[in-house]
């Protein structure tokens, strides 16, 4: 007791001593007549940065307030018709990539989605027709432009370079700087890399913004590079990583003896030096070196704690403590070039195991949102603003690393944790955008629904037999949990809405199981349309293909291309009637193709692009688009241009759900708090509908038709009309 009192007394004394010192110093600083002269720079030093920010903001705010009436006046002159004919002051569009109407319906029936149930009861719920093919970049491009693919020019994630028969990204092109100074082994760029958007047609928010409607667009796919308009936009799917790929993770292990590279990943061995392990993160191409394979690197070391449960990573002067089975925060990386400048990126570390082998997973290095090496937002400062406000965030288009789970480098729990970490960032962005858009249009697309369903569809919760025998613990509820969380997000959004706000919940496609793969190239080979060179084994990207005898080939997820003379590098099919005959022949042969092993229809329909699409870019489409039957999809090898001995094979990967099949099988969802008249609406209708809701004329080139849409209360009137 005495000791306790003494301790308490000591701590009191200490507190009084500290207080006395504090009071003495403050009194001295305040009352000492000479001191005030000295405190100036000291305090100035301490507050410099905040003061400058404050001063800058004050000046900007004063300027904004003073010029606001003038700006409003000119705004009024220019946009006096904005909102005048609008049915609402605000429209909120939430996109959930891959949200499936049948799964939603099932969970609705089970009462697991109360907020969506509210929308269904008071507003609208129906299936939303998707595009041909039902692939995210294609469907979202139609969503944002209101046109069919023949007018927006996006038909898949990739398209072939017709000269080289190699894949290229279909949404954007990043090319080397125009002017380069070559000195021996070195190339010094004299201008910026050239980035161009390949998607054509105009996003609906450009029309709205031009009319004076505020727009905040968050992570809508195929918006990279961001195009200028008078609103804010953060690019989504198709934003590359720092290497320029769609996501290349690195895996560091003491098990691998040498570096291994595959598409989407690099395995780098650890080198032990005394008590620590050394490795490096591969970075962007070293543009100074003429060797195209030269890459910048960010070296790092790992020191394992004695407990074998933790490790410390040292990278670029930072020390990051990480526990086994946990992710680090975002870590800023610098890739230093020969000129002394650096390219900045961010990544997360995941310590997979320590014993018997040290295994460390590193996410693809994302473009740094505060120092973007490529533009990822409009205005450029918007990505910086979001990062400053909410912290660093994933900028990569396909940020959820499905490849790492698919190839066994990440476990299911780790993958899910990654998905929800990213999703949390997106939610923060969305709610900030919603807050900033008191009037106008706020659009945000969430990708998690697509990624998680791709990887967890195999589990029996969806009424399908599991394709793989290993089902992770607790994985049965993953999709249900996902839908519930999205429902909660919708609930929180509805809480922030006012009475006449329009809410649209849309998805670009639904989902089905991916049980068996169809190798279209093998089928073309067996049918004599594709010829391999003698004694040359087939490999990725058409290795071993004899182009002088090949009439058709397949690349990507749904497309078959004819080897047309003058268009392809070594084309042999004459354009015109011969090509048309060949397209018809292929469609007839593919339609209703049966899988001999299961006797199921592997291909439901095949479409002649010339008949399926209309528009100026129809010529760029695959010549035949394959609509796979339920349970089927293009096999992994087929998508990468490899010919295998069999046409059909079992998909044994974790990637067990897909949607790149016949569009009639995978419609998306459409929910709204307003009543929408009619059924069988399509994703292309959304853009014209929004223009119409804000009282704008729908451009004639748009294929979609505006819906009859009114707030729930006045729906009955509309029905009567």
């Amino acid at each position: 007791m005495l000791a306790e009192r003494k301790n308490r007394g000591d701590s009191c004394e200490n507190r009084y001593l500290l207080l006395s010192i504090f009071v003495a110093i403050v009194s001295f600083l305040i009352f000492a007549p000479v001191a005030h002269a000295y405190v100036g720079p000291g305090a100035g030093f301490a507050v410099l940065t905040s003061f400058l920010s404050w001063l800058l903001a004050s000046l900007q705010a004063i300027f904004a307030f003073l010029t606001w009436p003038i700006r409003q006046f000119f705004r009024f002159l220019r946009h006096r018709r904005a909102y005048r004919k609008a049915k609402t002051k605000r429209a909120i569009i939430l996109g959930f990539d891959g949200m499936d109407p049948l799964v939603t319906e099932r969970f609705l029936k089970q009462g697991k989605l109360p907020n969506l149930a509210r929308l269904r009861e008071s507003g609208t719920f129906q299936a939303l027709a998707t595009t041909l093919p039902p692939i995210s970049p294609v469907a979202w491009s139609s969503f944002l432009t209101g046109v069919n693919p023949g007018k927006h020019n996006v038909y898949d994630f990739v398209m072939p370079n017709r000269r080289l028969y190699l894949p290229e990204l279909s949404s954007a092109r990043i090319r080397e700087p125009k002017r380069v100074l070559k000195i021996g082994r070195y190339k010094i760029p004299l201008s910026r890399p050239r980035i161009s958007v390949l998607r054509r047609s105009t996003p609906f928010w450009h029309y709205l913004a031009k009319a004076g409607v505020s727009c905040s667009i968050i992570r809508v796919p195929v918006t990279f590079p961001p195009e200028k308009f008078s609103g804010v936009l953060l690019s989504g799917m198709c934003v590359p990583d720092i290497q320029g790929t769609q996501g290349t993770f690195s895996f560091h292990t003491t098990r691998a003896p040498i570096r291994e590279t595959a598409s989407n990943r690099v395995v780098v061995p650890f080198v032990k030096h005394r008590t620590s392990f050394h490795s490096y993160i591969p970075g962007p191409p070293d543009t100074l070196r003429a060797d195209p394979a030269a890459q910048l690197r960010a070296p790092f070391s790992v020191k394992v704690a004695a407990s074998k449960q933790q490790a410390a990573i040292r990278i670029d002067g930072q020390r990051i403590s990480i526990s086994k089975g946990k992710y680090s925060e975002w870590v800023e990386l610098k890739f230093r070039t020969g000129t002394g400048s650096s390219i900045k990126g961010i990544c997360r570390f995941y310590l997979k195991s320590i014993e018997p082998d040290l295994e460390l997973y590193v996410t693809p290095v994302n473009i740094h949102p505060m120092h973007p090496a490529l533009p990822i937002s409009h205005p450029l400062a918007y990505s910086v603003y979001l990062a400053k406000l909410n912290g660093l965030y994933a900028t990569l288009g396909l940020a959820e690393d499905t490849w790492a789970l698919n190839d066994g480098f990440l476990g299911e729990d780790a993958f899910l944790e990654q998905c929800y970490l990213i999703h949390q960032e997106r939610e923060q962005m969305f709610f900030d955008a919603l807050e900033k858009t008191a009037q106008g249009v706020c659009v945000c697309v969430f990708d998690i629904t697509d990624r998680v369903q791709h990887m967890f569809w195999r589990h029996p919760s969806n009424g399908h037999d599991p394709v793989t025998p290993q089902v992770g613990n607790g994985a049965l509820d993953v999709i249900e949990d996902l839908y519930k969380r999205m429902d909660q997000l919708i609930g929180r959004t509805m809480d922030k809405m006012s009475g006449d706000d329009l809410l649209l919940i849309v998805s670009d496609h639904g989902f089905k199981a991916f049980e068996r793969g169809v190798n279209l190239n093998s089928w073309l080979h067996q049918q004599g349309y594709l010829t391999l060179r003698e004694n040359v084994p087939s490999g990725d990207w058409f290795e071993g293909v004899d182009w002088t005898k090949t009439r058709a080939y397949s690349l990507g997820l749904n497309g078959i291309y004819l080897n047309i003379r003058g268009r392809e590098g070594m084309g042999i099919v004459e354009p015109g009637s011969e090509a048309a005959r060949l397209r018809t022949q292929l469609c007839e042969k593919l339609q209703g193709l049966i899988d001999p092993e299961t006797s199921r229809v592997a291909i439901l329909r095949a479409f002649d692009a010339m008949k399926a699409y209309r528009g100026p870019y129809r010529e760029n489409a695959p010549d035949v688009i394959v609509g796979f039957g339920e349970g089927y999809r293009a096999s992994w090898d087929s998508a990468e241009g490899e010919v295998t001995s069999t046409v059909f094979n079992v998909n044994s990967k974790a990637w067990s759900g897909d949607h790149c099949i016949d569009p009639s099988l995978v419609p998306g969802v459409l929910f709204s708090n307003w009543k929408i008249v009619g059924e069988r609406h399509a994703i292309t209708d959304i853009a014209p509908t929004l223009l119409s809701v804000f009282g704008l004329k729908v451009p004639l080139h748009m294929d979609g038709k505006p819906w009859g849409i009114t707030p729930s209360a006045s729906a009955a009137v509309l029905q009567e009309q």
Partner: protein
Amino acid sequence: MLNRVTTLLIWIDKLFDFSFRLMKPLPALVVLAVFSVLTAVLSLIVVRWTSNQKAIRRLRHLIDAHVLEVRLFSDQPRVVLRAYLNLLGDTLLYLRYALVSLLVFSLPLLLLFGQLEAHFEHAPLEPGCDFLVSAKFQTADSLAGVVLRLPPDLVQTAPSVHVLSEREIDWRIKGQRAGTYDVHVVLQGHDFSKRVVVGTEFASIVPRRLRGSFWQRIINPGEAPLPPGGLVEQIGIQYPQRLFGVGTWKVGWLAPYAALTLAAALLLKGPLRTEI
């Protein structure tokens, strides 16, 4: 206790005198720059170890975000107003986080400033030019018996002026040759001296010798205080101010020192991994 502090201060004086002596051949502005960089490094170290760096970094980002908010959403007065209010709030919070570092650093900074002022505030007296020596006494009665004793190179050029109301005597003196001298004010058999620096070289200049208050001792370092309770309150020399040329402007030491310190701090905060 006070004696110990005084001893410590004397040692600090010696340390600074030594370091100034080392830098004697350098121009005054360079010496000032060296001290600016040292101040910046010291402040950064103090800030790094005494502040919540993570919270400061977060606040700095938030402040930047609010600045960008004002720019990005300038068409929406409500957003601008809210951003501005948030900015003010976060700035105050930031100052709260910086306060501990500021308090910890204020005492060493005060000692440092005392030393810097002693060396940079005034220039030495020019040889051949007149200057004033003034002494202030405890009572006006004692002014009659005061004698000023000068070394051979200092000469009195005019009769002394007695200002009874101020209890002060002023002497006009001329330094004939460069050097450091002591002038002696003698009263009732007690000798009170004051150092005088004549010349063109860089040196420690103490314009006033005061009677030993503790704070005065800190603020006016470089010369031991006058005996407490003695008849003389202070002896002062009217030194010219030292001015630094910045383009066509002439400014005192504080402005370039502050600017150089801030610049150095901003440059070094990255390498020293300190968030300010």
